[in-house]
């Protein structure tokens, strides 16, 4: 370091004109695209945990029957509206592994509630890998082995039982099979259509925009109610509830796209004026490419958020429609069906456990939300 007499400062480190500053750059950037995204995603702890959680949920779906101690429609006539039962480990200070106390129900004609009295002197250990109702693994392989079952002469209602004495816990597990799958089909349909048509309208503008917009307007100005009514009369009676539900979710999806399409269109109308879109076009990029590579990524956040938000709506769509006889119905089990049964005051005030299915919905949706958030963040160039 030198300070010259005229007040100048001159750096005296060796100077190499050829050296380029870029050698200071971080090398770790040199990896395929998805690795970079994944690397960034990993730093989003909540997103990671949520993703893992959802993965586990989906992996569990085929094995719902194995994990659930009871069948989805297995009734226990003597334990109606049984409250959640605790699994104990210590009996009179002594460790004897997981066990439950057998309970007996008494009708209380004062309050008109069932009173459950546990026999605390008679611990009954849970059974593991035991035989119970038959179910189909992944819908194919018949089996009757359960991870754990209620001991003989006792019940195991981890999350209580409902009006017909069905185990809420088991039903939630079975319900997941439908709630986590079929509803998503509707979302996919609506997203596919919404993005496709919305981006076409927004990007091309002009006549295409006009036509798509009129279709959207017309579709939206006709309420769905008449359609549902017509459908509820027209769906053949011998269709299985799941088939009906499937069709309904597809139709829901088909009807649902205009909202998204308009959002996409609006955004694209302004994005298409951006210079980089111009640049891509001037390089000769075909429209599809411009939409996919330049426009959509800039709307990704909105799309991810919208997708996450549609999930609860789709899971619950059936509750609204069951009002018209179009929803999913027994013997099929889904979270919506369970909540539908819980729509009365008594379920809130006296048997709150019948409303437990709300929890998995919230948890799953939150997980999707955080996953989407993590994804969003790792795709966001400004967050490094």
């Amino acid at each position, binding site marked *: 370091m030198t300070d010259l007499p005229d007040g100048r400062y001159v750096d005296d480190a060796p100077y190499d004109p050829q050296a380029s500053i870029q050698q200071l750059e971080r090398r770790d950037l040199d990896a395929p695209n998805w690795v970079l995204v994944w690397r960034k995603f990993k730093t989003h702890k909540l997103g990671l945990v949520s993703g893992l959680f959802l993965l586990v949920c989906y992996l569990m779906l085929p094995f719902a029957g194995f994990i659930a101690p009871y069948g989805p429609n297995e009734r226990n006539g003597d334990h109606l509206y049984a409250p959640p039962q605790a699994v104990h480990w210590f009996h009179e200070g002594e460790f004897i592994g997981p066990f439950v106390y057998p309970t007996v129900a008494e009708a209380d004609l004062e309050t008109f509630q069932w009173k459950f009295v546990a026999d605390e002197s008679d611990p009954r250990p849970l059974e593991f890998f035991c035989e119970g109702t038959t179910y189909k693994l992944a819908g194919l392989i018949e089996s009757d082995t359960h991870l754990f079952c209620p001991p003989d002469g006792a019940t195991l209602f981890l999350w209580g039982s409902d009006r017909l004495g069905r185990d809420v816990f088991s039903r939630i597990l079975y319900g997941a099979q439908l709630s986590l799958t079929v509803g998503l089909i509707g979302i996919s349909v609506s997203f596919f259509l919404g993005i496709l048509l919305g981006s076409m309208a927004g990007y091309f503008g002009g006549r295409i925009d006009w036509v798509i917009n009129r279709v959207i307007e017309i579709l939206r100005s006709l309420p769905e109610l008449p359609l549902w009514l017509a459908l509820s009369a027209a769906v053949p009676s011998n269709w299985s509830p799941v088939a009906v539900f499937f069709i309904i979710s597809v139709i829901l999806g088909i009807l649902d796209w205009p909202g998204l399409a308009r959002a996409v269109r609006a955004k694209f109308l302004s994005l298409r004026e951006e210079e980089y879109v111009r640049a891509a*076009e*001037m390089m000769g990029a075909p429209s599809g490419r411009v939409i996919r590579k330049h426009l959509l990524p800039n709307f990704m956040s909105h799309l991810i958020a919208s997708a996450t938000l549609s999930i609860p709506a789709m899971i619950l769509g059936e509750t609204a429609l069951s009002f018209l006889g179009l929803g999913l119905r027994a013997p099929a089990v889904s979270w919506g069906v369970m909540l539908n049964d819980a729509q009365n005051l008594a379920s809130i005030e006296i048997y709150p456990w019948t409303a437990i299915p709300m929890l998995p919905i919230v948890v799953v949706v939150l997980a999707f939300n955080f996953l989407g958030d993590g994804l969003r963040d790792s795709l966001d160039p400004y967050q490094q």
Partner: protein
Amino acid sequence: MTPLLSVRDLSIGFGGGDPVVRDVNFDVAHGQTLALVGESGSGKTITCRAVLRILPRAAQVRSGEITLNGPGGSLALSSLSERQMRDVRGDRISMIFQEPMRSLSPLHRIGNQVSEVLWLHRGASEKEAREQVLATFARVGFPDPERAYRSYPFELSGGMRQRAMIAMAMVAKPELLIADEPTTALDVTTQAQVLGLIKELQRETGMALILVTHDLGVVANMAEHVVVMHKGRVMEAGPAAPVLGAPAHPYTKQLFNAAPSIPAEVAPEPPLPEEDLILELNGVSKTYTMRAKSAWKPDLLIHACRGVDLKLPRGKTLAIVGESGSGKTTAARIALGAEPPDPGGEVLFRPRPGAEPMQVHKMTRAERTAFQREAQMVFQDPYSSLSPRMRVQDAMTEPLEIHGIGTRAEQRARAEEMLRRVGLNPDMLKRYPHAFSGGQRQRLSIARAMMLDPSLIVCDEPTSALDVSVQEQILTLLEEIRDSMNLSYLFISHDLAVVARIADEVAVMRQGLVVEQAPPNTLFHNPQHPYTRALIAAQPVPDIDRPIDLGLVAQGAGSPETWGEPFRFGDSVIPSLVELEPGHKVRCHV
């Protein structure tokens, strides 16, 4: 006397990497100008942003202290609370960002965005603010401040946006102005005017100035102190006179040697041959409509180009210089078919010598694809022309992908190669555009345009953000390629020195019209038009003893009505372009 701002041992890094700014020290005193010059990507912008604490999210200040001394005592900016910092920003220190195009909100009118500073810090009413802002607009050289006030950023030319940015920073009369390449997008006359304004303001209010620039001429004209940076470090710092006059550090020396200049002694040149034109603009005009204030008033018409005729022979460079907002970019965009001209104008492109000319605006899909392979553009605003969510690698290989050239590996290799040629490290391929310095982005843009080996490139101010040494490198590259591949350039620039170096013919534009056109040497030797003369006079020279002659500049840059009789034009009477001598056309009444 305590300096207004002192920066001590400032180090800044990104993520976990080595610092990109290391141990930077400097002081700025009241009323003084400090010029920050250096290599592109050397950390000038980052340093300035650190003062205002608006670094990118990924950046951290590793060490250092920044102190602002004022009448009320000294403030350690680095440890101020966010709330206190808010009072400093915009009020005591304001900043002109390097890329004015992106730094303005696209959805708000310019006037609104500029006045906001006054509302915030001066408690001005809407009307007071408006008056002040309009006055400032006029001073930074907006020909029609009212129109600018109501415009949206996308309706303005690059230079106009930059002037808006300058106005925004100055309108509140801060104690310290940080100007990050404030005049890159301005033609030299406007630049002279703006610099004059800044100086005036400094005299009036004692404002201090940190001027980041690559233009050594500007440094010479403005600065009392100079700090030279390279690779994040200060190479040399000190008073302007000795640093400019007798650079001590090898890097400084190298830098000054690289500075181009308008050749002093020139002889007229023969005109360009007229055969084998690759690009021809015939009578191209462009009129924009600007939404009127209310739905009932008729829309405002803006004539961006008026009857522009240009001919570009194959393998040559046609440069367009001219006032900011005179329609240069518009003409270039029309030339490449990005925008249609008004009816009557046509653009012809000949892919091969002797081939049938194609009408750029009436092409079939196949022709268009072929044309787009041959003709590329380097955008004036490199930031906006790169998709913010696309890694540089993808942006670079995109043209190849579109035209289906090469395998992925080949495409990547070519991208790396091109990056290296423009002086960037291939490592940077994985970054997003926002993680580059202004000059780096500009080079990316150039590299991308060359990916396809086109035969025509329209360069809209390709080197405005580059320091002279890198600029030198890029110009050499352009020339090399031109000569080896017989490439043609339509080259838009403000820097007459650059034009002098690279162009085979120069067209000078003013208010949508070409006012003079000639080969560069002819033009510099015998400039006819008052505006051309003003341009030449306004070109700053890196020598403190040769300040710009503002009088001459003002005369030529004034409104066309003030010009000498032969050149005068108004809205209705426009003299035609007359060929005074072979290859030298001037718009005048003869």
